[in-house]
């Protein structure tokens, strides 16, 4: 079997759009909205008791970049999915075109409905 995968480019777009929205929510969760948690560590330094302030700051300072790193990694995953979708879609279409040519030459008729996307109506070129 030459082609055993399928894709819905529009469905992937919808998925990615929504997923990016949630990732933005993750970034917005930080006090400054940029995924940086440094302000929490800075706030800890304002506590009146110096020992409590020092240790609270120390704990939080160890995690100031965690959220940004997490957001970055999830965005990288989403980027990979987007690239894969584009590649698969392109490969899918090329394969369909090849098959269409082959079938047209041998059978004389071909209906590439398999490659049509119900959401977009995308047809092989």
């Amino acid at each position, binding site marked *: 079997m030459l082609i055993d995968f399928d*894709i819905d480019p529009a469905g992937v777009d919808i998925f990615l759009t929504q997923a990016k929205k949630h990732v933005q929510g993750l970034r917005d969760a930080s006090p400054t909205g940029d995924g940086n*948690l440094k302000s929490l560590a800075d*706030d800890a330094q*304002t506590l009146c008791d110096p*020992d409590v302030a020092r240790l609270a700051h120390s704990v939080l300072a160890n995690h100031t970049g965690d*959220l940004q790193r997490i957001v970055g990694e999830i965005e990288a995953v989403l980027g990979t999915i987007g690239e894969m979708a584009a590649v698969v879609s392109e490969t899918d279409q090329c394969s369909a075109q090849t098959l269409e040519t082959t079938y047209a030459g041998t059978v004389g008729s071909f209906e590439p409905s398999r490659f049509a996307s119900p959401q977009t109506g995308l047809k092989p070129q």
Partner: protein
Amino acid sequence: MTGQLPVPYADYTLEPVRALLGALHRTATGIEQSVTRLHDHWPTLSSSFSGTLLTSVPSTPTITEKTTPATELVAVMRDVWDTLDTYADDAHTPLENLRRLRDEAATLQSQRPRDVMVAPGTPDQEVWAAQAGYSNPVCLPESPFDTWNRQRDELKAEIATWVQAYENVAQQCVATLRRINSPVAMGVWDAWTPSEAPYDRPMFDTDRMHWEHKDNKRREETYSFEISRSTPGDDDSTKTAETTSSTQAKESTTFGINTVGLNTSQSWFRGHQDAASGIFGSQDGVHGSGNASYQAGLMADTGAGINGDGANITASAYAQAQAGVRADVDGSVEYGVLHAGGSASASVGAVAAAKAGVTAGKDGVSAELGVDAMVGGEASAELAGGISGVSAGVGVTGYVGAGFGANLDADITLDRVAVDLDLGVALGIGAGVNVSFDIDPKEVITDIGNAFDPRGWF
């Protein structure tokens, strides 16, 4: 010593703590909600993106793998939030009282009696009235300075009480934050027990003021450590100096982590003392009075450490428990003009200690383990033969388990002085101490009376 009383921590406010708590809660909740939404949304990918070729792509990670660090981050933030919330709740009352006492100290200072110059022989009442600020003589029961100094002492005592209350709260908060900050290192402590046994520690603090039915508990916790870490293969030019330093350290250590030293110790003390007294008999016949008292102390020390000397890393831990009881009974018997008195005392103590150590390095791994225990007791009586009604027992048991506990049951009346101590220390390697004590003061006093019964003199 006439300046205004200092009131530590009175200027501390909890507003910054509350603000940080709010920020922590909002941030943690926001992260949690976003992670949940991502998890809920992720399965929808399969409806538009499928096929064996796609699922075989190795660079497709699962969302769970990517959000696990976020979940761990939220857990840390929740731990910090819980710790600071407890601190804010518990510190509120001590700080509120310290602020009140600061105001009261200022008021008291403003009411300090005047220093006045008087002619020799001036009556006290006139001097006191002048010191108190009265222009005419008034009747004062005592010197205004005596009154003022007493009020000042009372205020000072109350300040000390609330200062201690606050410091206990802050100390607990700091200890918890340390554990959050270094969970691995602190986990070592939690799993370990006692070491160098300070057998010369006094079992009882005889200089302490007498108090009844008070539970005196003191806990100290100190930690200190220093760890430097090497980062092999780090090409970042900005970290060159650090890498060089770490490489040098690595050459002299075993595991690439230069453990300079990490040590901690804890001590725990609980003391009880109580007393009872009474009279018996009638004035026409044999009569007398008796006093009985006991002191009971439990002391435990634990500690552990990791120390590196270049080639080896040594981890050691120790635990020691001491328990002791001392009881005193004295009585007097009178008959007419004759008087006789006597006393009896007894003490029992026990010490149990355990230690363990592991050394790892170029020469291999070696370990040592030891458990020691010793017990002792003595009883004495003065001016009385055949003192009865005193019994004591002590036992030491070793066991392996986890946890730390102590129970003290004490009962004191003129009929009975009974103390039962059960102290267990089990942090990996454990030893338990049990001390029991039972004295019948009446019987002791009766023996004193029998030994000096004036009726037997004729």
